[in-house]
């Protein structure tokens, strides 16, 4: 009896430890740690924007218009670390508030992409031919249209609000993940252990929950991270060309758009939000690579 007890406690410890061990291994990876820290700082800055920002993001100051960033010319001042735009609004404060919109849109559109993608992929992999054919035809059609085309069409119909942009980005990104999930599932369902589960009386739902969900989520984790960066870029692009976020809302893209006419004499209006986007996407891609390395070991 005593040896049984120890066996079962060892057993349960092993089970609970595994996710933790993966996470520990990730944070032992220096690249991952630094990238994650940078991102956490940026997210915290966005969350606490009202407390940190030196100015209101909409506060105009005509006398201080087109002030360059600190160390870039005599007009520069500590009052406007990253300079001001053509209306004299503080770029640093606008970036803090813009980050909130950009991160929010990226976060929720990534949720939509992977939620729908994984759900649909699992469905079409597990359930019969008809469901599969319908879904795959839909994804075929959608994959043959570039995201920009879909976005332009949809945003011409629906007014560009934060919600509609999130939805547009979300629904234009899922088909590729539905495909990936489906081919994963199809490869797995041919295997004998799935047949064995059916012989034991398992339903498709049980098989899905037990054998596929965790694997699929883990194997797409690195893509989730990458896609997040991509969505930040897409939002910025849409807003930059004027079909995304509309004033008075602020996002990284709208700030860049504001600088469009001043690219030569006031490069900072466009460049500094652009640098933020670069830092975010590079950090995310480092993280993604670390995830791939850690999970595959």
């Amino acid at each position, binding site marked *: 009896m005593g*040896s*049984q007890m120890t*066996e*079962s406690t*060892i*057993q349960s410890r*092993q*089970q609970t430890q595994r996710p933790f061990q993966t996470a520990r291994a990730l944070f032992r990876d220096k690249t991952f740690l630094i990238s994650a820290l940078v991102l956490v700082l940026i997210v915290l800055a966005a969350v606490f924007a009202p407390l940190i920002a030196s100015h209101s993001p909409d506060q105009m100051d005509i006398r201080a218009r087109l002030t360059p960033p600190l160390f870039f010319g005599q007009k520069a001042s500590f009052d406007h670390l990253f300079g001001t735009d053509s209306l004299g609004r503080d770029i640093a404060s606008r970036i803090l508030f813009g980050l909130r919109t950009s991160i929010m849109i990226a976060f929720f559109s990534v949720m939509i992409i992977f939620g729908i993608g994984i759900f649909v992929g699992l469905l079409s992999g597990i359930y019969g031919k008809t469901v599969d054919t319908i879904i795959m035809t839909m994804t075929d059609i959608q994959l043959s249209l570039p995201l920009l085309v879909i976005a332009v069409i949809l945003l011409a119909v629906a007014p560009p609000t934060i919600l509609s942009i999130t939805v547009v980005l979300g629904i234009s990104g899922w088909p590729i993940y539905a495909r990936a999930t489906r081919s994963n599932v199809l490869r797995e369902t041919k*295997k*004998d*252990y799935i*047949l*064995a*589960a*059916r*012989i*034991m*009386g*398992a*339903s498709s739902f*049980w098989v899905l929950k*037990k*054998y596929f969900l965790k694997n699929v989520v883990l194997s797409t984790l690195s893509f989730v991270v990458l896609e997040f960066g991509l969505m930040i870029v897409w939002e910025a692009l849409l807003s930059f060309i004027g079909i995304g976020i509309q004033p008075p809302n602020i996002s990284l893209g709208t700030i860049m758009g504001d600088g469009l006419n001043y690219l030569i004499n006031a490069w900072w209006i466009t460049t500094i939000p652009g640098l933020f986007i670069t830092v975010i996407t590079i950090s995310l891609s480092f993280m993604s690579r670390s995830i791939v390395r850690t999970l595959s070991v």
Partner: protein
Amino acid sequence: MSANDIILDIQDLYKDYQLPRKNIFGKPSYVHAVQGITIQLERGLIYGLVGESGCGKTTLAKMIAGVEMPTRGGIRFDAEHLIKCDTTGRQRENSRRVQLILQDAYAALPPKRTVEQILNEPLEIHGLGNAAERRKKIEATLETVQLPLSVLSRYHHELSAGVTQKINITRALLLDVELILADESISSLDPISRIEIMNLFLKLNAQHNLTIVFIAHDISTVQFLCDKVIVMYLGVCVEYADNPEIFVNSMHPYTQALMNAVPTLEKGLTGEPLYVLEGEVPSPTEMLPGCNFYSRCTHPARDEQCRTRKPALAEKRSGHLVNCFKV
């Protein structure tokens, strides 16, 4: 034989697998894996199901286990219909009575799991017991198959072939089934594990009155283990008889040829005509008009009737059924 003794009653069972079409307008082609099997199994016996590779043994077993739908025909379990060709969703009840142990024991277990997790799955699927009750049940069943409790914390990939096979058997036993189909369960094992598994089947049969269908290529294991033997050829059952009878008095030309492949003492002594298997098994994508064994049959009386008409499984002696016109 009273009707109660019959655990499984298979009536005129067919299975065609549709092959992928060459193009969307092409005619679909089929593999006729099982071509009309009618057979009754008695409770509490060990059956041997033998035949060459591709003759439909696994397909038949899958239909009995309920994971493959017959194209035609029916399977009754205890006078109750298990499989009507149109019903679905009865797999759950079915699995409490029949379990199939798959050919590839290693691939049949889910990867990256401990034995404890694996053995919990059948109980979980059927919602049997709470955690403590499940644990007790698993421990008791492990004792039956003579595995130590320490195996529970092992991972799937750490197990030897013999233990892997035992885990598969344990998993089937956990559902308290009455019939177990074991598909080539020992052919990939070392001699010692083989004997161990065979003894386990004998013990389960004797102590739990478990009916076992043992699928094999290999006649010698069947000879050791089984009460009755079913010989299959190209989707049909060609001969069905008790254990010593079928080996001593094999009647179908195919069975005789199979026995010939196994050297025994009696054969040399009696000097009976030796049948030799020549040529290829015909492709199961075509339905032959006559006897399925026609192309390879060396029976002296083989004739036009064999080529154009199908023989049926008929009792040629008491309890000895043969599927041939000429015996």
